[in-house]
Structure formats: structure tokens, C-alpha cells
């Protein structure tokens, strides 16, 4: 849909049936350049929150019809990246905890002081040129009077989940967001790189600061730049820019794995597929992979030279691997810090039925996973393995997979992220 003209100071959706309060909020925020849209009930609020572009939602818990809590669940399900600030007269801890569990970013009780409410909202509004960083209105506790543990209680540190829109429909990173908010009480901002526009020299909607943690699950080149920007600003990333860039570059990744002594199918690199004519006949069929990998996109099986002649290839440089027949079943290793899991599932090249079954992680598999992780310095990773007669052969390594079939992965990852965040805060301060 075509959104209304964007206000300089950002757009706020207020879902509030009390017209007196709504009017006060409209005046307060429009005065400082924000565009405020007021939805008088949950039905309209859910529609606007999930179809229009807002920087933050201010949501009254006590709405007529669809309750504020139901609306919060609806927003969190469809737009986990959209910050929601709850506004309510019910100030008991269980209500607050329920809201935070359901994905609220913040919680303000009535009666509220407008300047304090503004402070909560401002944290989620885009930075305007010359106004400093996005969070500079948040009061930072004095470092000489409070230790790191105390500082963590402020909740000012943010987990920035950097992803692509298409991943919002997948398990990850959405499944990570819930335990981070509910179990660890972390402020989580989900940013879709493909929906973001940043002005060079300005933070825009991407403004992690030292002390925050960035969790990238993305295949976007633009996101790599954002990751690099964050690292230059001293922000810790779950997987670093260099690690993500290395596994995305398949020829480079293959060379690094080979150097590390990881067993792989026979692999050739060439400027273009025509150059593969010299690959020995005994090595065919080949799997041709594009230079920049994105799951199984663009992978082609070529049986022989005739197939090579018929091939239409637009990806430039090519990585070719000897095809190893494993009956269409892949072994997938998942890792998160020290944890390693393994599942069997159909090869994405032949998958017609989705299934997934857990596999016991043997010492060899654990060693293989950790070798791959160490090669690229990855914290959250996946390793595609062919369980061949000659032993496990690694065909791909990727950063932050979907952890399909691993039920406990979100919780383990959230613990890992929380631990890293603690370390990051300690280091930064």
C-alpha cells in the first residue's frame, strides 16, 4: 500500500479509545514533528500496525472489542520488528510481565507524565540529522556508582536483530525474539534490511551503540554494510561481519575449509562454467554453485559436457563440486556457541516432502561442527554434510540457520545472546 507522507520526526500509531488522551498525544507529538495516527479500536489498530509503516505503536491495554493484549499478540505475530509501548492503568507486575512476554517493548502506566511517555516513545523514533544518536534521550546510569549487573537492570541495552523480510515468515529469527523479551527482559528491535533506508552519515533507523548486540540473520549485501557500520561503532555482533562475509563467499569458504583440513567433495573453482570442460570425466556429475550462496538458490546439477553446453549461467564465477549420491538425504549440523545439534532432512535439491529427524551428535560430528565454526569464527551456524560412504563431507557452512527440528534452539540461543550482551556491556563500560 502507499503510505501517507512520512513526517520528519517519525510516525506513531496511537491505539486509544479515550479521545481525551488521544488528543493530548496528538498535540504533544505533532508539535515536535511526528505524525500521529489514532485508531479508536483494536480492529483498526491491528490493520494499521500490520499494513502501514510506523516507527512505534502506543497501545492502550483496555480497548473495546478486541483487547489491547489480543492486539499486541497480533502485532507481534505479524510485525515482530515493530516496537509496541503499552499504556495502561493496570500497574500490577503480572500485567506488566504478561505484556512483555507477549512482545511489548515497553510499558507505561496511567496516569502518565507526558515527558516520560515521550522519553519512552522517542527511543524508537528515527534520528533526525544533527539530533545525535537514537538513544541519547535515554538516561544512562553513572558508571562510577553502579556495577555492570546494576546497569543491565536499566534495560537500556538493546538486541538488534538484523534480518530480511522473508525470514519473518520463518522460525528464525522470530523464535529468538520471544525468549529474549520474556525470559531475559531484553529490549529487542527487529530491523529488516530490505525495508531500511539510511542516509550516509546519519544513523536513521539503524543505530546500535556500544553496549548493544547485533544478531544478524540475513543474506542481504546491504545488511553486511550495516553490520560493518555497527562493528566500527564498537557494537558486538553474534556473528561478525568477517564471518558472515566469508561463508557467503562460497569459493573463499571452500578454500578456508580446505586449508583447515575439513573433508569436502572434490571441488573446483572457475571463472565460468565453460572452463569446467577440463574437469576429469570420472568426477561428473557436478553440482554448480553460484559465487554468492543463498541457501540452495542457483545450484544446478550437470550430468555431462552436453549438459554443460546447454547450461544457462548468469552468476559469473562458479564453484563446482563432485556430486555425491546420498539418496537425497542431507545431514545438517547446527551450532550455537558450545551447543551442537544434528538432524537428517531431505536435500533442498530434491525436497518434495518436508521432514526432519534428530540425529545423535557423535564426537566426530561435534568435532567437525566446531572445526567449521572455528574456521570462520562463527557463533551461530549451520553445516551441510553429506553422510557418504567415505565419511562425512562438508558441502556448505552458513551463518545463523533456521535451526529446523531443534526445539530448544531458541532458548539456548537467547541464553547465548543474553550472555554475550552482558559481556558486551561489561566491556563497553
Amino acid at each position, binding site marked *: 500500500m502507499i503510505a*501517507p507522507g512520512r513526517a520528519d520526526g517519525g510516525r506513531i500509531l496511537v491505539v486509544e*479509545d479515550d479521545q481525551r488522551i*488521544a488528543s493530548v498525544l496528538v498535540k504533544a507529538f505533532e508539535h515536535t514533528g511526528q505524525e500521529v495516527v*489514532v*485508531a*479508536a479500536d483494536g*480492529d483498526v489498530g491491528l*490493520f494499521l500496525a500490520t499494513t502501514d509503516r510506523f516507527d512505534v505503536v502506543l497501545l492502550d491495554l483496555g480497548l473495546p472489542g478486541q483487547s489491547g493484549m489480543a492486539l499486541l499478540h497480533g502485532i507481534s505475530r505479524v510485525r515482530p520488528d515493530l516496537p509496541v509501548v503499552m499504556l495502561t492503568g493496570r500497574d500490577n507486575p503480572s500485567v506488566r510481565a504478561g505484556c512483555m512476554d507477549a512482545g511489548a517493548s515497553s510499558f507505561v502506566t496511567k496516569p502518565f507524565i507526558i515527558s516520560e511517555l515521550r522519553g519512552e516513545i522517542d527511543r524508537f523514533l528515527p534520528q533526525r540529522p544533527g539530533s545525535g544518536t537514537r538513544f541519547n534521550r535515554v538516561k544512562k546510569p553513572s558508571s562510577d556508582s553502579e556495577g555492570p549487573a546494576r546497569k543491565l537492570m536499566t534495560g537500556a541495552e538493546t538486541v538488534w536483530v538484523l534480518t530480511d523480510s522473508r525470514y519473518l515468515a520463518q522460525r528464525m529469527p522470530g523464535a529468538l525474539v520471544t525468549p529474549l523479551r520474556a525470559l531475559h527482559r531484553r529490549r529487542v528491535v527487529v530491523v529488516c534490511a530490505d525495508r531500511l533506508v539510511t542516509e550516509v552519515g546519519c544513523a536513521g533507523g539503524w543505530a546500535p551503540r556500544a553496549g548493544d548486540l547485533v544478531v544478524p540473520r540475513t543474506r542481504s549485501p546491504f545488511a553486511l554494510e550495516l553490520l560493518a557500520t555497527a562493528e566500527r561503532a564498537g557494537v558486538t555482533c553474534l556473528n561478525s561481519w568477517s564471518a558472515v562475509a566469508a561463508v557467503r563467499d562460497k569459493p573463499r569458504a571452500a578454500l578456508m575449509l580446505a586449508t583447515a583440513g575439513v573433508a569436502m567433495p572434490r571441488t573446483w573453482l572457475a571463472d565460468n562454467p565453460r572452463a569446467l570442460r577440463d574437469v576429469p570425466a570420472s568426477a561428473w556429475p557436478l553440482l554448480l554453485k553460484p559465487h554468492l550462496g543463498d541457501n540452495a538458490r542457483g545450484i544446478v546439477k550437470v550430468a555431462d559436457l552436453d549438459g554443460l553446453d546447454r547450461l544457462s549461467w548468469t552468476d559469473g564465477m562458479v564453484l563446482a563440486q563432485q556430486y555425491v549420491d546420498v539418496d537425497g538425504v542431507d545431514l545438517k549440523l547446527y551450532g550455537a556457541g558450545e551447543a551442537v545439534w544434528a538432524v537428517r532432512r531431505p536435500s533442498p535439491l530434491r525436497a518434495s516432502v518436508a521432514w526432519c529427524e534428530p540425529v545423535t551428535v557423535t564426537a566426530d560430528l561435534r568435532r567437525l561442527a566446531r572445526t567449521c565454526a572455528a574456521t570462520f569464527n562463527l557463533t551461530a551456524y549451520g553445516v551441510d554434510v553429506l553422510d557418504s560412504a567415505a565419511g562425512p563431507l562438508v558441502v556448505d557452512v552458513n551463518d545463523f540457520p533456521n535451526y529446523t527440528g531443534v526445539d530448544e534452539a531458541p532458548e539456548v540461543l537467547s541464553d547465548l545472546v543474553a550472555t554475550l550482551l552482558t559481556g558486551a556491556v561489561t566491556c563497553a563500560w
Partner: protein
Amino acid sequence: MRLVIVGSGKIACGYLAPLFAAAGWQVTLACRAAQTADRIRRAAGWGVEVTGASPFARTVTGVAAVRAGSFAFRRAVADADLLVTAVGVGNVATLGEPLADALAGRRRPIDIWVVENGDCAAGLRSAILAASSGRPLPAFGIAGAVATVAVGRGGWGPGERPVFVGDADRVLTVDRNGLLGQVPTLDGVRATASYLARLHEKLYVFNAGHAITAYLGWLGGHDSMDRAIGDPLVRPIVVGCLLEARRAVLAAYPCLVGGSEFNAAADIHGPVAAALARYADRQLADPVNRVAREPIRKLAPGDRLLGPVRLIRSVGGSVPAHFALGVAAALLYGRGRDDAAGRDAQARVLRGQLASRGVMAVLDEFCCLSEDDPFTHAVAERYRGFVFADDAVLFPPVHTTDALLAPRMDGPSTGRFSPSAPHALASGALRNGQ
């Protein structure tokens, strides 16, 4: 193949004639005024622009023009393979006589498609038969058809060759039940056995939201639809209307559900978002005054403002608060300004009646809303809640205190909804002066 289109307005010239001409049909436009037919002939063509993600422009040429009722018209109808009308709901009844005359001069059967924002086919058949005065007519099929396109600009006024600008949503759904022959294969044209569902889907959702955007937008000082729907005060109210109406249409016509089972995102939010995007089409720059004109017609019981209200309540919905505000806004069209809206003849009649007899009487006379109907009170309360300040208009709240407490209604006359209630004029959101 030969086609006669009765009408030379936006739908005829911005959609129907280009559609058939592009498919190789020989098209004749039949105009109400001889002067218009002359202009079309002298211009020897006109421009058509289609907005959207892949906008394009083309010139329509080779289209003949005659005056409806003339000898040339009768001859064109005698030779035609298909007859299509697009004259506006209010003018359909006037076609009885010229069409009866023309049909009396042919022997072959023919189909007539009535492309209007209303269920007019049966009425036109009656008008033709009444006007035939016993003369034998050939067999003719007559069927309603729903055109989804919005043509915002273009017309045959004095001046240069016109350009008709419309959006890219170009589907024509023809009621197969009323036809003698098959619907020809044409781009975007399809036959349906669920004509009324399709008509109400368009009229009660898209057209309803369109009209309410225009009325609220006019009160907000906007002159084009894209600006009106971009107004942060207007947009949520229109969204509320669209959601209320879309839900009711789906409840009344389950055949409109897209997949094997209902999906709120696909069946409700998707079409509502699509409608909003079409209102916001900046290339179309549809004038507010075009969409808002003739408010009495639009306030008629079965039309786009009250038709959906009736449907909402017939499927068990509560008093639709957003529609109540939209209808109240329609009553105020043209108030206090000497612009095109202020000069709209129907708007002037409404203002006079409101001033002399009051809102309840106007709702009774023009909308058939009785005094004991809770929706009548909901409209009246919101009507009285608008405040015309010097440089801005204060909108009343969507939900008044009592509306929020209103129980879900079992039907249109379950009068448990109590009006009363002072609503805070001062609490209306103050518009930025525009």
C-alpha cells in the same frame, strides 16, 4: 464485431471503449447530447492513461460517435453484436425509450451489459419493455456488470482532445445469468454467477470507503483523494469503514472468500489495503469533489453509504461506528464554502433541509432511517459533534461512550443502543489548519 456503448463518460471512454477497440471491435459511442458526439467526431480520438506500477498511455482512435435516439444510433444498434451502457445509475431509467426504439429496428437477438454502480439491469429491462408500446422487440439478454476500474479524470468539455486517466485495476465482471450469449474473450472480462456478491463487494466496500474518504477529506480541506486518504485523521476512520464493510460482505457472500477457508489477512486486510492504495494513487489525482458529488444519491438506502450499513447489521454486526461518522460527514458536504461542493445542487438541498428540519428529519427522508433506529442516533450524534472552527474542522470521536457499550445487534431494529450522551466537542482531534 460491433459494439455500441451508450455513454461517453469516464467509464465509457476511459475503460470500455479502449478495451473493446484494442481487441479489434468496431466501437460506437452513443452520447446523450449531440454536441458531445460532435466533439468526439472532431477530436478523432482521445488519450487514455493507466496509472500504477507500470503506467502507460495510448490513444484511442477509430471510434464512431452518435447521439442516443438518433437515426444513426438506431442503425448502429441494428448492426451491433453487443450493447453496453455506462451512463450512471441515475440516468439508466432514461435509456428505456431510445433503446426500445433502436431494438425495434433489429431482428437478431442481442445482449445488453449494464455497467453501473448499482443493480440496474432489471430496471432497464422494465423501462425498455414499457417504452416499446407493444412493438415487437427481438430477444435481448440484459445483465449487470461490475467494472472495478477507477477513472478519475477526463471528459468531453470544450477544449482540447481529452485524456482519461484511470488506475490499473481493470476487471469487468458480467452477470452470466441474464445473458443470451457467451461473454466474449477479452482482457480482464469474465462472467460470474455471483453478480450481486461482486457488485456489493465493490459498491459496499471500495465505493463506500471512496465516498467516505471524499467527505472526510473535503472537511479536512483536501482537494484530491490521495491527499485525503493520507490525512492521519481521515485514514483510520476510512479503514474502520472498510473493515466493517468487508467483514459484512464476506459474511453475506461466503463465495468471495479467496481460499478453501477464511483467512483474515488475505480476505480482509488484503482487499482493504488494496482499496487504500488505490485511493492514494497520486497519478490518478482523483478530485474529492468528483467522488463526493451528489450526496443525496449516495445517501440513498441501497447505495454505497447505507447499503453496507444495512448489510453489516443484517449479518449480526453492531451499530457501525465508523460508518456513522462517515454518513454524518456526507451530510456536511459543501457546508460553509462557496466552492464546487458548496454549489453541488444535492448538497444545497441537504443543507437547506438540515437547517429547516433538522438532522433526524433529513435522515428519515433521504436515508429512510427512522427515529427509533439506533444507527440514526449514532449518525446524528456524530453530525452534531463536528465543529467548524475558523481555520479547521474538529472531528467528533468515532466511538461515543454509549456506542462503545452498545451490544452486538441481532438485527437492524434491536433498539438497545441508547444515544444520549454528551460527547466532548472539545475532545475532537484538532486538525491542522489546511
